[in-house]
């Protein structure tokens, strides 16, 4: 193969035991591969169609977010957290706000907590729909499922735009509350979207869940065992797809999640299909939470009056705050030395840690399955590389 082809490949001799000359094909998948969801590369060694080695290569989108945040004020990093997982900016804001609130001991007003739950769960809805759409796109179901997913996602993004002024880079939360309150008629509009959502999910499931090709391509593919999932620190739908009951909304009960009745869907086999299914079911649970939150939201202030977000100087100390972001555990670790900017600012990205087991899941599978397994992890490179 010439050096100018897109996927660079070369042959190496495999030491064989039977005297025959087997050949391994080394393929560099990415970084500009449509299935990698960004710029991400995998060094794959293939024996025929079978994967015998896979090493992920990171860093194409690295801009040292943490270093930049250490030279910024606490408030100054808030809009930059939008750019981590750019599909779920509000979930990132929430996690960062929670860490700062722990660091400085800030109480959040009731109404702001409800606003956080509403926007956070709407974020989960749009992330999981588009995530499933991408997965199907990777599988070769070109167009339809992704367009259906994007149609619904757009409705949620419209809500975000009328609430925060931006579709994706919402920059919505502040430590001690939220930036803006709902405009008039927003809640009714949001209720309409949420009430219409189960019908879309029914349609989506009718279209996909029983589909023969989808089942053939995903069931028994990319199996992740319970033990390995816990050991490798996998979180989010991927962990629950392997049957481990661990949802930080239930475990930490951060914010006001103890007030809502919802269940944690679990998978059984830990394959790609289970992860797909867990995401679908999680959306239905999110709708339950949204219904309760929209009904109960009280009037009141949306910012803690005592917190001055400008010229903010927390006492020296450290805090680790984590939330159940749509992709898994998103944590922020902050150390303050009493100055206006954090001494240490660390993002614990769920996507990066979830990639730890990519090789384990792909070994022995066909090369075409890599794409689907990667799609089922649901990564965003803005967060992996930071």
């Amino acid at each position, binding site marked *: 193969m010439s050096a100018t082809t897109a996927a660079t490949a070369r042959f190496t001799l495999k030491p064989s035991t039977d005297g025959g000359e087997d050949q391994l094909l080394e393929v560099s998948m990415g970084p500009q591969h449509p299935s990698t969801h960004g710029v991400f590369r995998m060094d794959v060694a293939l024996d025929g169609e079978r994967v015998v080695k896979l090493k992920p290569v990171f*860093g194409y989108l690295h801009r040292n977010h943490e*270093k930049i945040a250490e030279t910024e004020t606490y408030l100054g990093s808030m809009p930059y957290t939008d750019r981590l997982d750019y599909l779920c900016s509000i979930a990132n804001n929430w996690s960062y706000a929670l860490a700062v609130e722990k660091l400085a001991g800030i109480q959040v007003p009731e109404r702001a907590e409800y606003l956080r739950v509403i926007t956070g769960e709407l974020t989960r809805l749009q992330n999981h729909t588009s995530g499933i759409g991408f997965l199907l796109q990777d599988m070769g179901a070109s167009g339809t499922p992704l367009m259906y997913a994007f149609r619904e996602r757009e409705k949620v993004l419209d809500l975000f735009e009328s609430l925060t002024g931006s579709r994706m880079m919402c920059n919505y939360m502040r430590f001690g509350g939220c930036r803006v309150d709902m405009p008039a008629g927003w809640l009714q509009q949001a209720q309409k979207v949420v009430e219409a959502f189960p019908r879309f999910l029914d349609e989506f499931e009718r279209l996909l869940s029983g589909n023969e090709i989808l089942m053939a391509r995903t069931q028994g593919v990319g199996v992740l065992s319970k033990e390995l999932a816990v050991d490798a620190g996998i979180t989010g739908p991927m962990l629950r797809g392997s049957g*481990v009951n*661990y949802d930080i909304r239930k475990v930490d009960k951060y914010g006001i999640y103890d007030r809502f009745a919802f269940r944690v869907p679990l998978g059984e086999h830990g394959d790609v299909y289970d992860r797909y299914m867990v995401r679908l079911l999680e959306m239905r649970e999110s709708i339950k939470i949204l219904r309760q939150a929209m009904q109960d939201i009280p009037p009141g202030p949306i910012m803690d009056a005592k917190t001055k977000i400008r010229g903010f100087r927390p006492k*020296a100390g*450290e*805090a680790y705050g984590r939330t159940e972001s749509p992709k898994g555990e998103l944590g922020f670790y902050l150390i303050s030395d009493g100055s206006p900017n954090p001494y*240490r600012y660390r993002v*614990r990205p769920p996507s990066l840690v979830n990639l*730890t087991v990519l090789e384990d899941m792909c070994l022995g599978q066909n090369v075409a399955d890599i794409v689907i397994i990667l799609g089922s992890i649901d990564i965003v490179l803005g967060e992996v590389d930071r």
Partner: protein
Amino acid sequence: MNLETIKSEIEANVPGCRLLIVPNNSPSGQHSLLIDRETALTVARFLRDAAHLRFDYCSNVTGIDWPGKEITEKVKVKKTLDGVEQEVEEIQKTQSAGHLEAVYHLYSMEKKHGPVILRMRTEDRADRIHLPSLTPIWRSAEFQEREIFDLYGIVFDGHPDLRRLLMWDGFEDHPMRRDYVEPDDYEYEPTPHDAVLQRARQHLSEAGGR
């Protein structure tokens, strides 16, 4: 769960370990446990395997750089002044070596408790920068320790695949250290910002240009 209890339990079960509770004065109240390099693996294994602790999930692993500080001390020195021996107070300045730190946030998925925060410190920031890798205990540390190696330069002994994670292989420095200086790979762009123009001028004069 109380960190004091966990500390005394570790001390009872891991002979020869030296533990120290690092207090945290922020309202979060997350105190951490400084463990020594020699018994770190045994301590970690105990925390993971002990039936009532079961910290089976290592969530966050990260590095911190603590550069050395200048310590000023007043020392009395005997000196001969004008032929008479006198005791004179002198100000002595010493430079502490500083250290790099690795921090591990542990939770339990089985018992649903946590966090317990472990810290390990290197001896200095120059050449004694080795720490034992905890990847054999918690696989989730694999990429995160690689990231610390990359950005802070801590060498994790026993890590199965210690390579740079985010920077490219030929890169030499560790960008997250406090004293990191960006390389001068500046490309001149005629943008009208003062800061940019100033830097361009500086670059050119350093490079021996106009």
